[in-house]
């Protein structure tokens, strides 16, 4: 009788242990499945600069970062047509690059390319709007005054 009681207690102890282990493993499995689904559904979204960040970067004179931002945005399809706030900051970067291309073309004696670069500079200058004061800063920077 005592043996029977002892055995029944031992068995219920085993059952509790099995239940506990099964529950813990099941919980861990469910959590891992959720984490896996979340990780796989998440695509590698590129970090794209918004207009405000781009403007701040340009205003601080950090044109090297601004060039990166504009090119990364454009490569991911974010341009002036998607958000009009980008028109002016993009134009500043386009002006800088166009002026560099212009000076490189002059240096190489390629007048046709220089003329085309000048046209790009003028178009970018118009789009700069109230940021046109940046053009002088860029000119000074490139010439090295």
């Amino acid at each position, binding site marked *: 009788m005592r043996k029977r009681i002892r055995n029944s207690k031992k068995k219920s102890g085993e059952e509790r242990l099995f239940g506990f282990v099964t529950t813990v493993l099941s919980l861990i499995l469910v959590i891992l499945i959720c984490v896996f689904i979340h990780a796989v559904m998440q695509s590698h979204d590129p970090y794209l600069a918004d207009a405000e960040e781009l403007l701040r970067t340009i205003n601080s004179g*950090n044109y090297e970062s601004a060039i990166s931002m504009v090119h990364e945005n454009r490569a991911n399809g974010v341009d002036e047509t998607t958000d009009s706030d980008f028109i002016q900051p993009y134009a500043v970067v386009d002006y800088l690059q166009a002026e560099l291309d212009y000076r490189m073309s002059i240096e190489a004696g390629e007048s046709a390319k220089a003329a085309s670069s000048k046209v790009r500079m003028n178009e970018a200058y118009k789009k700069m709007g109230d940021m046109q004061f940046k053009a002088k800063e860029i000119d000074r920077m*490139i010439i090295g005054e």
Partner: protein
Amino acid sequence: MKCQHCGSNLNIEDKFCSFCGEPNPFAVQHQREMEQFTSDYIETKEEVIKETQGKSRRAGRITVIAVLAALVCIMGLLVFKADDINYWREDKAIADNKDKYMAVVEQLMADEDILGLAYYMQETRIVWNSSFDDYYKVFTTASDYRRMYEYTVELMEIKYQDYSYSTEEEIIENIAEELSSMFEDCERQQFDKDREFSNGKKEFMDATVEQAKLLMRVVFGISAEEADALPTMTEARINVLLEDSYEKKNQK
């Protein structure tokens, strides 16, 4: 057995003698013993059945736990490799849309838009995709040019900034490093394949080198002859040339 009273034959189960009618004392004891045996038998049988069921139940539970543990290990491995799985999916998507990406790459090369190509290949991740192995040298050259261009702009703007992470010497050193790397990447090495230089790729890389030389002439004021000699120089010589030229230009 025999009846104690008349001696006639009796079965042990007979409670009374069929000849003399006297009670058989052994029958009661026998019945009691039979009942005890039957009870013990049933009890033992139940215990054995329970024991057997218990063992198979235990085996079943252990199997369930083993399967759960195996699933947990597999899911753990999948979670650990989730990034690799994502990259594989992205690479497969690129390979499936190779023509679309190729069209953009070809257009950018035709326009000699080196920066555009450098950023496009990086943002779309085609630079790491095996479907574009033939463009490896083009991509590497464009990437070198991009970094060199950014360092050059950083050098130009440094004078107008209150604070810079790098000094002018450090930036010029970086420019020299990228230039040297770009010139090396454009050259045909021993194990390079023909298709890495065919279909306009060589022309694009040559154009990139020319653009780099022009940029150095504009920013550093080096002569055309010095610029043409850049691809033949070591990185250290390029660095010294650029530093000296930059100093001279600033003194003017």
